[in-house]
């Protein structure tokens, strides 16, 4: 293992560097950022200067500060949502595959119904019912993305539960939780970890999209998706500032994918 980590490919090294930088921004945002995230520090749409490296936004707030806080709001939110989606998806997948029969059928077909509706439209529909709160957004996105996680888990677990060691555990009268934790999960780590990386990107983009539409993170909190929307007019004047939060999103998703690729490569045992 140590020998393998010794030769990290450049793409993965890049990914790790970016994710580390973002993590620092997430953890230490109040220390690094020059101003407060909702603090109005000058006139709207100030150009880039020494005082405001990326200028100010439509309300006169410091752009750099909001980018840093944006990492905290966007990334942390996406992470929580992804973990929640995994909790829902893997639990449903494992339980269904072990219990089989009606339970499996009920879970599987409900997921089919959820997946049949286009994700964004479904999310908008649900958020119209619940009202656009932060908690509601997290739950709705976790539910929708959880169905994708369920599909993968169910497929992987389907191959595992027919193995005789699982049968042996069932014959011993082991509990459902024990079978999931000790027999299935250790054998499903590789595909699930890879999925975790990918799913994180999708969740991130989904929340940004919702925020862009005004349904995710509420103003005045900084969020990259809504920052693009709020400052979009600047593009017409040839200013690239609104593209910065968009670039922040793009770089993060690419980096996470680099790391996932590397991880997949390692666990699949393929040589270069």
């Amino acid at each position, binding site marked *: 293992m140590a020998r393998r980590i010794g030769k990290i490919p450049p793409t993965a090294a890049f990914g790790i560097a970016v994710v580390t930088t973002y993590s620092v921004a997430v953890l230490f945002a109040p220390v690094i950022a020059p101003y407060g995230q909702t603090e109005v520090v000058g006139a709207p749409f100030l150009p880039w200067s020494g005082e405001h490296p990326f200028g100010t936004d439509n309300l006169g707030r410091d752009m750099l500060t909001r980018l840093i806080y944006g990492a905290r709001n966007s990334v942390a939110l996406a992470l929580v949502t992804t973990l929640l989606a995994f909790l829902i998806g893997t639990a449903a997948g494992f339980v269904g595959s072990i219990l089989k029969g009606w339970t499996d059928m009920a879970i599987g077909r409900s997921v089919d119904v959820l997946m049949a509706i286009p994700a964004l439209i479904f999310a908008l529909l649900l958020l119209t019912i619940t009202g656009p709160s932060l908690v509601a957004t997290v739950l709705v996105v976790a539910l929708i993305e959880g169905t994708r996680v369920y599909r993968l888990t169910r497929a992987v677990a389907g191959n595992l539960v027919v*193995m*005789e*060691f699982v*049968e*042996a555990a*069932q*014959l*011993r*009268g*082991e509990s459902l939780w024990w079978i999931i934790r*000790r*027999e299935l999960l*250790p*054998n499903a780590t590789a595909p699930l970890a890879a999925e975790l990386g990918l799913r994180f990107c999708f969740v991130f983009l989904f929340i940004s999209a919702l925020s862009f539409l005004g349904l995710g993170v509420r103003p005045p909190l900084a969020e990259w998706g809504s920052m693009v929307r709020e400052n979009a007019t600047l593009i017409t004047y040839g200013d690239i500032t609104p593209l910065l939060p968009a670039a922040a999103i793009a770089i993060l998703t690419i980096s996470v994918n680099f790391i996932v690729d590397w991880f997949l490569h390692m666990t699949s045992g393929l040589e270069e």
Partner: protein
Amino acid sequence: MTDKNLLEIRGLKIEGRRDGKVTEIIRGVDITLGEGEVLGLIGESGAGKSTLGLASMGYTRAGCVISEGDIRFRGENLRNLDAAAQRRLRGRRIAYVAQSAAAAFNPAHRLGAQVTEVPVLRSLMTQPQADREAISLFEEVQLPSPVAFGLRYPHQVSGGQLQRAMTAMAMICKPNLIIFDEPTTALDVTTQIEVLTAIKKIVRDHGTAAIYITHDLAVVAQIADRIKVLRYGEEVEEAETARMMAAPRENYTRSLWSVRSFRKQAHTDAQGQPLATIENVIAHYGELKVLDDVSVELHRGRTLAVVGESGSGKTTLARALCGLLPSTSGQVTLSGTSLAPSFRGRRRDQLKSIQMIYQMADTALNARQTVGEIIARPAELFLGKTKPQSFDRARELLDLIGMEPGTFLHRYPGELSGGQKQRVSIARALAAKPELIVCDEVTSALDQIVAEGILKLLDQIQTELGTAFMYITHDLDTVRAIADDVAVMHRGKLVRYGPKEKVLTPPFDPYTELLLSSVPEMRCGWLDDVIESRGQTATA
């Protein structure tokens, strides 16, 4: 001299390279094979039989390298040929028949298309020519309805038919040499005899030379002109089949010959209350009836062998006993109490009493748990031991099964040999202190010397602990070795049941007769005798 010999291998050495370590797999072996000659290669697993067989085509598996020696096929050194020239020989002049036909055929294509692929691809025949040739070959290997056979998909035919179709595929280019790599190992005795007959006939009729790789002596004695015994990648001895069978020179060969002689001491007679009974059990897979009114008894300290070909319902019987397949009617009792049909309805002490050992230790052991964790868990669960206590029990059990606890306790199953894995499965079953152990073909995937070790271990366990065994197998030699009682099953029904001496003594019912006469005997000419006697019954 070289012109007369079809295949000449001189001083062949093959190295396996993995993680920077070099291991010698073949350490200087010579093979001389004339036109139309059949050479049997025999040895335990890991002896290098398959590697040598593949090397005869100038091929090595990934990670293996031919480091020294010559492989001359019709005078031409295969090692000097480039990849394209080697490819021209393979499939045309040299063909290969793999052990598992089911894994070797592509399930998405029809058999005819796969059999005729090579000659058409190499422009040796047009598709209609190849189809005609395939049909005549299907006829030669005695496949049913040869004309329609090629239109079927692999899953639509039986394992024995698939293996014969593969032999036809190997023959289609009329090669000079065929390499058979354990072609009947995965088959039942009754099916094996069909395949052996087909192989023997086709090789003789076409005058094809062959290398027949197997670990079953009785099989190789029927097919081969000469036998070469391999061990650790080196030749032990080589001789004409008749002489080899009659008077093997080396000790190792003699030990191979004597493996089949293991017989356990007779245990206590069946007396008093049976430990467990299966009474008039009927079970279904969906609509299909797989067990039809089966009743057997299991006694403490005795072994009931359940024997039959695949699909006879012998594994299903074990699953009904364990509650994995709830029976539709009839009942299973343990120490006089009736058990719930499904294991989910059984009490923990009832689950504890019946433990199971599977055929494939690879899938029966969780690859992500250590040997210690695997064995300790049932002790912790059933005997209410604390974690350290259960690991102590695991150590005791490792001692019992002849594996050094210090070395093996923290290893993962992937780091063990096949025989060791099966021993760990046995230890896991024993950890619960069961009264009855169900063994499902536990030695079928192992070669004879390792299998004998497992049988001896089971016997020792029975003597020491008085455990009852239900032993499922298709191998009648194993039945003779370890059974006290025998149940013969056919198509979900019990056709013969009783103490071993009674079941295996004539007069037989027709099915038991067929089963017993299909077991290869350790003498030359056995196959010819059987074919002849069956031919007579068929014509009479």
